[in-house]
């Protein structure tokens, strides 16, 4: 998909760059600036940061490597790219840990200055990879970034240490030149960010330009590239991470439901951002509570919900495990709390900064007794906003604890997001009874089986709830066998009937065919991209993505029935697959990657080709 143009400018549809360096090298900043610039320029973008687990591992060490991947394109994209086309490696450790991901034939920009003996030893390189044939498969561009940056800034008045700290801007400058990006937004950003320290702002500006000029002047690069604007839906955009979108979504839900929000949480990677984000919104009346642990956090959410507020708690997998018992209490008391789980790689502490979809079955079943909850899962960073609102809508309309299953990849990844207008968002009524004459705490709506949300402070509605089995209608304690059977069934059916209140599952592609690729959560991008590619090669394959996991959309069975085969890619050993097989007795096939990394388009594509071999039908 490359077209050569007269000016030594190659036109590309999509490029993926990974900036990799030491934690101290500012790779996240460089990546973000590249992202924002590309987005402002009009590309579609998608990003994925990759932090080390250690706070600050020793400089130059392998565990200290920090990376940021950005994919930008002239068409709509859904993932930050399977593998980078360009890798910027600021030191040997960064090269070592990231090279395996670089596309064969890809471009490698290395900071040659850092390939000294000490650093090579820290990265456990026996020989200098820049010498010899090790990198023959790549286009290697060696740039003495450290020294060129130092030269550019020799008159800046900054200390050598400070000077070194702007090497990332030099590297960014090179990339800007290589992909024809404007420098202005970044120059502007330097001014704002370092307002208190104009010398630093200036130094970064200087070296950014130096890098840019170096790209233009040096003959290291045979040509440079152009990625045209994407044809995106019109609107005002910003770049947003999933965790930001989650925070904004719940804040907005509180506005739409006209109920105050209490967010109670205990910090845990990769969910902490949400607490940190919401803590900034005090002027919106949001209350945040950093609890002593996860049990206390959900307890507080339940207390808030009992008080008529939106009780929200958030955590990651190990914290969800700790909340299990209390979620059961919310099931029994039928209070509308929402539990955010930003999943990470498990089991146990696992790999806290890595990604996985390992908590679906925990969310479904991780409680004693028959204890159904509603579950939703956003598909993209921006979709976290929508599904947060949906989670609150479902919880409050159906008086049911609702689990919001995000993951680390969604949470820290970003994409352009059309800034919504409040008027476009539907507000939903949440009512509480006030009539003492007719009030019964466990009287149920005939249609939805929902009990009333009676709130302290309402005269005449004084009542008691708790974790013991309730008597139908009155809510008093009951050990009656048939009452228990009835209540168990009510709780189950209440959740099942939510299916009437959520959208049907839409199929991307033809409504029937040889293969349906069914996914959920953050694998959306990889699946859609793979299916679109396969479709454009004429394969009879469609995709469907579940954003509602309990209950399933009401037409799911019908959708499944119209395909010969069903493939379920998941970042676990087959959790959705198990639910689908059990429910629909469909021999769904799994594509299961549990590596801590996001799913790749190619992995899905390969499976599609395996399953729909030779079966290609012509597309009319």
């Amino acid at each position, binding site marked *: 998909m490359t077209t050569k143009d007269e000016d030594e400018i190659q036109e590309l549809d999509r490029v993926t760059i990974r900036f990799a360096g030491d934690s101290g090298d500012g790779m996240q900043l460089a990546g973000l600036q590249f992202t924002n610039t590309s987005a402002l320029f009009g590309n579609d973008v998608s990003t994925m940061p990759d932090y080390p687990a250690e706070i600050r591992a020793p400089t130059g060490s392998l565990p200290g490597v920090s990376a940021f991947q950005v994919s930008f394109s002239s068409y709509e994209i859904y993932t930050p790219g399977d593998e980078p086309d360009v890798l910027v490696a600021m030191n040997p450790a960064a090269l070592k840990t990231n090279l395996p991901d670089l596309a064969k034939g890809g471009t490698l920009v290395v900071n040659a200055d850092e390939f000294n003996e000490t650093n090579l030893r820290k990265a456990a390189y026996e020989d200098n990879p820049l010498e010899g044939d090790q990198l023959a498969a790549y286009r290697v561009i060696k740039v003495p970034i450290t020294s060129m940056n130092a030269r550019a800034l020799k008159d800046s008045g900054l200390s050598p240490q400070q000077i070194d700290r702007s090497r990332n801007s030099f590297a960014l400058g090179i990339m800007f030149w290589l992909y024809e990006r404007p420098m202005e937004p970044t120059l502007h950003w330097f001014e704002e960010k370092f307002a208190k320290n104009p010398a630093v702002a200036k130094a970064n500006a200087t070296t950014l330009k130096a890098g840019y000029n170096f790209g233009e002047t040096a003959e290291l690069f045979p040509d440079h590239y152009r990625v045209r604007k994407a044809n995106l839906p019109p609107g005002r955009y910003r770049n947003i991470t999933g965790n930001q979108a989650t925070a904004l979504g719940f804040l907005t839900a509180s506005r739409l439901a006209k109920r105050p929000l209490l967010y109670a949480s205990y910090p845990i990677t990769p969910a902490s951002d949400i607490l940190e984000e919401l803590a900034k919104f005090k002027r919106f009346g949001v*209350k945040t509570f950093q609890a002593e*642990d996860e049990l206390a956090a959900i307890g507080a959410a*339940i*207390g808030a919900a009992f008080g008529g507020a939106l009780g929200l708690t958030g955590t990651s997998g190990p914290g969800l495990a700790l909340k299990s018992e209390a979620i059961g209490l919310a099931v029994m008391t039928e209070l509308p709390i929402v539990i955010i789980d930003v999943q990470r790689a498990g089991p146990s502490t696992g790999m806290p900064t890595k990604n996985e979809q390992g908590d679906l079955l925990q969310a479904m079943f991780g409680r004693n007794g028959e204890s159904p909850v509603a579950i939703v899962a956003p598909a993209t960073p921006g979709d976290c906003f929508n599904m947060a609102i949906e989670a609150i809508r479902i919880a409050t309309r159906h008086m049911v604890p609702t689990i919001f299953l995000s993951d680390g990849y969604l949470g820290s990844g970003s994409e352009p997001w059309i800034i919504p207008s*409040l008027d476009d968002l539907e507000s939903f009524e949440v009512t509480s009874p006030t009539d003492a004459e007719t009030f019964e705490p466990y009287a149920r709506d005939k249609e939805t089986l929902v009990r009333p949300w009676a709130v302290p402070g309402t*005269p005449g509605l004084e009542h008691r*709830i708790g974790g013991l089995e309730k008597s139908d209608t009155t809510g008093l304690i009951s050990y009656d066998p048939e009452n228990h059977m009835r209540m168990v069934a009510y709780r189950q059916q209440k959740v099942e009937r939510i299916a009437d209140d959520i959208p049907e599952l839409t199929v991307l592609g033809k409504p029937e065919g040889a293969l349906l690729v069914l996914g959920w959560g953050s694998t959306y991008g990889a699946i859609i991209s793979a299916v679109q590619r396969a479709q454009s090669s004429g394969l009879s394959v469609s995709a469907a993505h579940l954003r509602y996991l309990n209950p399933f959309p009401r037409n799911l069975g019908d959708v499944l029935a119209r395909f010969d085969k069903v493939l379920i890619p998941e970042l676990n050993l087959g959790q959705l697959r198990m639910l689908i097989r059990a429910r629909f007795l469909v021999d769904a096939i799994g594509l299961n990657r549990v590596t801590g990394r996001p799913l790749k388009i190619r992995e899905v594509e390969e499976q599609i080709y395996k399953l729909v071999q030779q079966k290609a039908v012509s597309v009319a």
Partner: protein
Amino acid sequence: MTSVAPDPLPVLARKDFVSDQEVRWCPGCGDYSILAQTQKLMPELGIPRENIVFISGIGCNSRLPYYMNTYGFHSIHGRAPTIATGLKLARPDLSIWVITGDGDGLSIGGNHLLHIIRRNVDVVIVLFNNRIYGLTKGQYSPTSEQGKITKTSPLGAIDYPINALSFALGAGATFVARSLDIDVHHLIATLERAAHHKGTSFVEVYQNCNVFNDGAFIEFADKAVRPDRTISLEQGKPIIFGKEQNRGIRLNGTTPEIVELGNGVDESDLLVHDESRPDRTVASILTRMEYPEYPVPMGVFRAVERPTYNELLEGQIEEARSREGEGDLEALFAQGDTWVVD
């Protein structure tokens, strides 16, 4: 579902706080008295019934909310303080009571008790201490004496017990008191003090479990010996006790001593009880006076003012609003770099 204009505040009586649920503790259980005093106290507080919430964990004691004709939440074991915290933060207008036990509050729930107290969330906590697990039928609890023979300690408990009040003081409690199930006047008075305190009020009530730990407190709490073996703490007064009011407590350095009045010892030698001492040392010394070495102090040990967690939180919201203005959601949506695609 038509809402009617509220009547002028009705004058409530004890019976208005009695729910329609049959009380199901063992006959003779100390819980009855605590319930009765609590119900009696409620009308005195002048708080509309609908603004009162009782929250409990699990245990015999934790059934209490069912018997109060207020809002109530019988939650899960040890977690009542967390629910109370969330409710208070969401609804600072409510009067919130936490009912817990020696097992619920000090075993499984110890951490939450610690943290609600240190935060000084404005709730009343009543801990029913019967020094046993009642509901699960008689295992030792964190307040059981060392050596106690129970179902799970057939050769005697080897845990060293927790002193609930020392624990509360250690957590930084602003209000700490102790009372006795059968001393009904003292009990209601103590609960009333707790109700009026702003911040976490922690009240331990010695409660007899006549089925699994009968007579746990009888040696000093029995009416006949009570004046000699307990102290009724009174604010601003020297600490005097005994049927004849002829004995007192003096501090020798940091060690309390029992002295006889007379023979050159008079009230001015005695420790004067002051709940409001900013430092908790003397209160702490009092909490560690245990029978038979000492008479057991009853009443309010400490009552000091410190901003509550809920106030501080509301304060920050107001501050943020006054500084930055009411939040504008759409502006927030559009924060940072934005661009337009047309």
